[in-house]
C-alpha cells in the first residue's frame, strides 16, 4: 500500500496514509482541536486537494427518532440541544409548524419577543463562529475577543429567559415569559458596545494583511454554484444571492421591522466573514426596534388565549405584576402543554438561523407524540460545499474554507 521509502509524519488529529506515488490520504479529525466532531477525508496530490469527503455523524443523537416517542412539548428542549448557541432560532420552526397544525397564531407581543431573542442568538452565534474561525487561522486574539463579547449577548438572553443557552423560549402559541422592565436599556447598551467592537474586529482581523492573504480569493463559490449546491444562510448571501427567509417568507415580526439583507458578490472566504459582520449590524438594529416596540406597547398577553385561559388565576396576578413570584412577571408553565394533542396533518416551516435556513417537516396523526419530524439545518446544507468547493485548493487552505462556512457539527449530526 505504501510507497517505498516514503516517510510521512502524522500530526495529532491528522493521519496521513500514502496511497500511491504522490497521492496521499489525509484524515483530519474526528477530534480535531478546531473542527470539533467531524472528520474530513482528503486526498492530496502533492499538497493540492483532489478529493474531499466530509465524513460526518460523530455526534449523532438520533433526534428524529427520539422525537417520535416524546410529547409535543418535550421536543422543544430536545431540538435546541442541536445548536445550543442558537437555541431560539433552531426550535422556532418546530414551534411554528406545530402552531400551523393547531391553527394558533401567537399574539403580537409574543412575536416581537421571539424576534428579539432570535436576533440576540444570531449575534451570539456569529461571534462564536468568529471565535472558531480565529482558532483555525491561528489568530487567538479574535478567539478571545469574540468569545468574550459573545458573553454580552448570552447574558442578555439570560436576563430575558432565565437561561444562558438552552432557553426553551418559544412555546406553542407564545413564549415562556415576558421581558423584565429594564431590559430595553441593557439591549441598547449592548448594541452600542458591539457596534464599536465590530470596528475593532475589522482593524485587527478582517483588514489585517495576514488574514486577508489567507482568505481573499480562497474557497470562491459562484452565485450559480451556491444555488446549485443549495447552500444556506450567510454563505449563499456572500455569493451574491438575495435570499433570506426573513425576506422570502417573513415570520414573526420580521415584516414589521426595518432591516436590510446585506449581500457580497465575491463569494470567497473573506466575503463570508464580512457578511457576518454586516449581519450582526442588522441584528443589532432589529433588536433595538423590537425593544422599542415592546416598551411602547402594554403587556397584553405573551401566550395565545387558548393556552392562557387554562392558567390558574394566580398566574394572571403574577403576570399583571400584582404578586411577585421569583421576580416580576414570571409565570410558570401552563398546564395544558403537558397533555397537548395536535390535530392530524402535515406542515412545513422554515426560519433563518445563524448558520443558515432551518426547515422542519412535521406530521401528526392526532396523538400526543409526533408521527414524523424531519429537520434540516443550515450547517447540513453547507457541508456539501466541502466536497465540491475544496478540491483544487492547497491543504493549507482547508482551515480557512472550513472556518469561513461557520460549520457547526452538532447542528447537522443532531
Amino acid at each position, binding site marked *: 500500500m505504501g510507497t517505498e521509502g516514503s516517510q510521512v509524519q502524522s500530526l495529532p488529529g491528522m493521519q496521513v496514509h500514502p496511497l500511491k506515488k504522490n497521492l496521499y490520504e489525509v484524515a483530519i479529525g474526528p477530534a480535531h482541536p478546531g473542527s470539533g466532531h467531524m472528520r474530513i477525508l482528503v486526498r492530496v496530490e502533492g499538497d493540492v486537494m483532489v478529493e474531499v469527503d466530509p465524513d460526518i455523524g460523530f455526534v449523532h443523537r438520533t433526534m428524529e427518532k427520539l422525537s417520535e416517542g416524546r410529547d409535543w412539548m418535550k421536543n422543544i428542549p430536545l431540538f435546541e440541544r442541536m445548536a445550543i448557541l442558537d437555541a431560539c432560532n433552531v426550535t422556532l420552526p418546530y414551534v411554528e409548524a406545530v402552531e400551523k397544525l393547531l391553527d394558533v397564531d401567537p399574539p403580537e407581543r409574543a412575536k416581537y419577543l421571539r424576534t428579539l431573542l432570535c436576533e440576540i442568538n444570531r449575534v451570539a452565534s456569529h461571534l462564536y463562529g468568529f471565535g472558531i474561525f480565529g482558532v483555525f487561522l491561528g489568530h487567538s486574539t479574535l478567539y478571545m475577543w469574540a468569545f468574550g463579547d459573545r458573553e454580552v449577548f448570552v447574558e442578555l438572553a439570560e436576563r430575558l429567559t432565565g437561561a444562558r443557552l438552552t432557553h426553551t423560549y418559544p412555546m406553542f402559541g407564545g413564549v415562556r415569559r415576558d421581558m423584565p422592565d429594564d431590559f430595553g436599556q441593557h439591549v441598547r447598551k449592548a448594541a452600542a458596545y458591539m457596534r464599536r467592537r465590530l470596528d475593532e474586529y475589522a482593524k485587527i482581523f478582517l483588514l489585517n494583511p495576514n488574514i486577508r492573504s489567507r482568505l481573499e480569493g480562497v474557497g470562491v463559490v459562484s452565485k450559480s454554484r451556491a444555488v446549485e449546491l443549495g447552500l444556506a444562510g450567510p454563505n449563499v448571501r456572500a455569493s451574491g444571492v438575495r435570499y433570506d427567509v426573513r425576506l422570502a417568507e417573513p415570520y414573526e415580526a420580521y415584516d414589521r421591522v426595518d432591516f436590510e439583507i446585506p449581500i457580497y458578490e465575491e463569494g470567497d472566504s473573506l466575503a463570508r466573514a464580512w457578511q457576518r459582520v454586516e449581519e450582526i449590524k442588522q441584528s443589532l438594529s432589529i433588536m433595538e426596534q423590537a425593544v422599542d416596540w415592546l416598551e411602547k406597547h402594554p403587556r397584553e398577553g405573551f401566550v395565545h388565549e387558548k393556552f392562557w385561559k387554562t392558567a390558574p388565576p394566580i398566574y394572571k396576578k403574577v403576570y399583571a405584576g400584582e404578586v411577585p413570584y421569583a421576580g416580576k412577571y414570571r409565570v410558570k408553565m401552563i398546564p395544558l402543554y403537558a397533555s397537548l394533542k395536535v390535530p392530524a396533518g402535515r406542515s*412545513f416551516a422554515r426560519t433563518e438561523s445563524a448558520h443558515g435556513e432551518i*426547515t422542519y417537516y412535521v406530521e401528526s396523526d392526532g396523538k400526543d407524540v409526533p408521527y414524523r419530524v424531519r429537520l434540516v439545518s443550515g450547517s447540513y446544507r453547507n457541508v456539501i460545499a466541502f466536497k465540491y468547493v475544496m478540491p483544487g485548493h492547497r491543504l493549507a487552505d482547508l482551515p480557512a474554507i472550513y472556518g469561513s462556512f461557520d460549520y457547526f457539527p452538532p447542528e447537522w449530526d443532531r
Partner: protein
Amino acid sequence: MSTSAQGIVERLRSILGLAPEAPVEQLKGYVEVSVDPASLRDAAAKLKAAGFDHVKSVTAVDYPDKKQIKVIYHASSMLDESLSGYVVGLATSVDRDNPTVPSLSSIWVSAEFQEREMYEFFGVNFEGHPDLRPLLLTPDVAAQRPLRKDFKVVEEDDYLKSTYDEYTSTKRWV
C-alpha cells in the same frame, strides 16, 4: 395569501402539465404534488426548469399499515423571488419491502447527501445515485433501518451491568 396560494397551485399544474384531477394539495406551509416513481425524474426536471433551483429537505415517512414509504423532496427557489416564498413537496410512494426511487441528485445536487441519509435510515434505494453509502451511521446500525416504525427504541434500565455477558445481551447491534 389565499389567492396567491391558489395561484401557486395553478402554476404548478401548468409547469408539471398535470390533469385537473391530479393530486396537488395545499398543505400548511407547502404544496404537495404526488407523482408515481416512474415520472419522478421527469417532474423534477420540469420543476427545476421552471425555477425551483434547490432542494431544502428530503424526507421519507414510513407507513407500515399501508406497506408504503413516502419520499418527499421539498424544493424551492433562491434566484426567482416570485417563487422563493413557496415550498413545493414533490412526493412519491413506494413499496415498503422494496423501496426503490430514482435518484434526483443529478438534477438537484443539493439532494445528494440527504438521499444518502434516507438510504441509511429507511433503506430507500436511490437508483442512479453517484455515491450511495451511509452518511451519519455506521454500517451495522444503518442495516437496521432505525427510522422505520418497526425499529423500537428500547430504554436502558438504570442498573449497571455487572458481567460482560449481561452487557452484551442488552446491546442492540454488534
